[in-house]
């Protein structure tokens, strides 16, 4: 499974949606994922890819990890996998 598909699967599970309903330009807010859901998704992503995501819930826009859409999250994870490989 590609990084993209796996991330979409994780986000879809959190949002209680089918993966086909999660598009690349969806925002977490549109998908109904709140702050706890976000933290839980990041945990699932870290476990799935064995990476560490630099995310602090107090300053979500400050870290390098961009959570503004599904596409930016996937891009961020691909970068982290490359860096932490």
């Amino acid at each position, binding site marked *: 499974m590609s990084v993209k598909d796996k991330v979409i699967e994780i986000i879809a599970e959190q949002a209680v949606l089918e993966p086909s309903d999660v598009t690349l330009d969806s925002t977490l807010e549109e998908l109904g994922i709140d*702050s706890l859901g976000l933290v839980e998704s990041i945990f699932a992503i870290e476990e799935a890819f064995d990476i560490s995501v630099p*995310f602090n819930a107090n300053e979500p826009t400050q870290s390098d990890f961009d959570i503004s859409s599904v596409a930016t999250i996937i891009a961020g994870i691909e970068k982290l996998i490359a860096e932490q490989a």
Partner: protein
Amino acid sequence: MKRVVITGAGTINALGQNVPDTLAAMREGRCGIGELDLRDVDRLAVKIGAQVKNFEAEALFNRQQMALFDRFTQFTLVAAREAMAQAGLEFSGELAAKSGVVLGNSGGGMQTLDENYRTVYEDGKNRVHPFVVPKLMNNAAASHVSMEFNLKGPSFTVASACASSNHAMAQAFQMVRTGMATAMVTGGTESMLCFGGVKAWEGLRVMSKDACRPFSANRNGMVQGEGAGVFVFEEMEHAKARGAEILAEISGFAMSSDAADIVMPSKQGAARAIAGALADARLNREDVGYINAHGTGTAANDKTECSAVADVFGPHADSLMMSSTKSMHGHLIGGTGAVELLACIMAVRDGVIAPTIGYEEPDPECALDVVPNEAREADVEVALSNAFAFGGLNAVLALRRV
């Protein structure tokens, strides 16, 4: 209804191992937060905390006690001994029969849990010390205080996460106010700075990796602390009759529940607790000069709390002071309200307002006088102590100069 006063105070926390040292540190705006010294700290992402350093428990407790006292119990007894020595009350006869200990605590014997989980899970051993249960149960501290000081009335532990101490002290206050007890020992305690305790908090991603900067625009989370605060609450006429030194009067309290979210705070829930405490103490909002904030240094708490205070106090919000001493002693979770009550006593008794240290940048969403970085002298008649816990459980106490 009886009036209730504080006749004894004791503490141990990262700022000091007694009340005078702690208050001196608060006056100086000293920071008790530093690098954590604990096993496997290299496996933690959060490596700072407000730890009690240079604590020689073996010098204070005998071998048998050490076998039974988790660190949170040790802290409690240190604070209780100081409070009881100051109060000068001897508990015997009828007084002893009615007086008890109500303490706030969240995690119980976390050090004991951590060590013994290691023993069975990591080291693969199949045997643990026989005292693990009596050592880790979170009423252990209250029980040992009752034993040491012959308190035979109602004793128990209150757990409401970060509001545990305030809920506990509110309960003790009620008991004395209604005449159920003449005196109660109360406060709170916590010792969660062990690998498992910090790791659990780390998971929530609300912890700062560098400092606790409440209300500052660049705040980035909370920092855990540890320790205890213990007080003697006594019926006022009883205290006066025996010539006891009165530190302050507890004049009211209120509790509320957000009934909304397990972690996100609610402005309405906080505001109802603050307004409720004023009503219970029969205070006008203009009477309040100082609020010891819950002020965790998280994005969510600080703006919600400021907004709740602005709602309750209206224009007076701009003339009162509100600081978060967590910037210095960290967040003691179940013990935090007890240590923070000391800052309220210092405000009404000594006219010294503890600062919010680490304050670097104003935040328009926290536009109150947060007493940035330096303590201030001020004539304060009434102080409030806020506590707003995970789970949406709020408790606010009102303190008054006597």
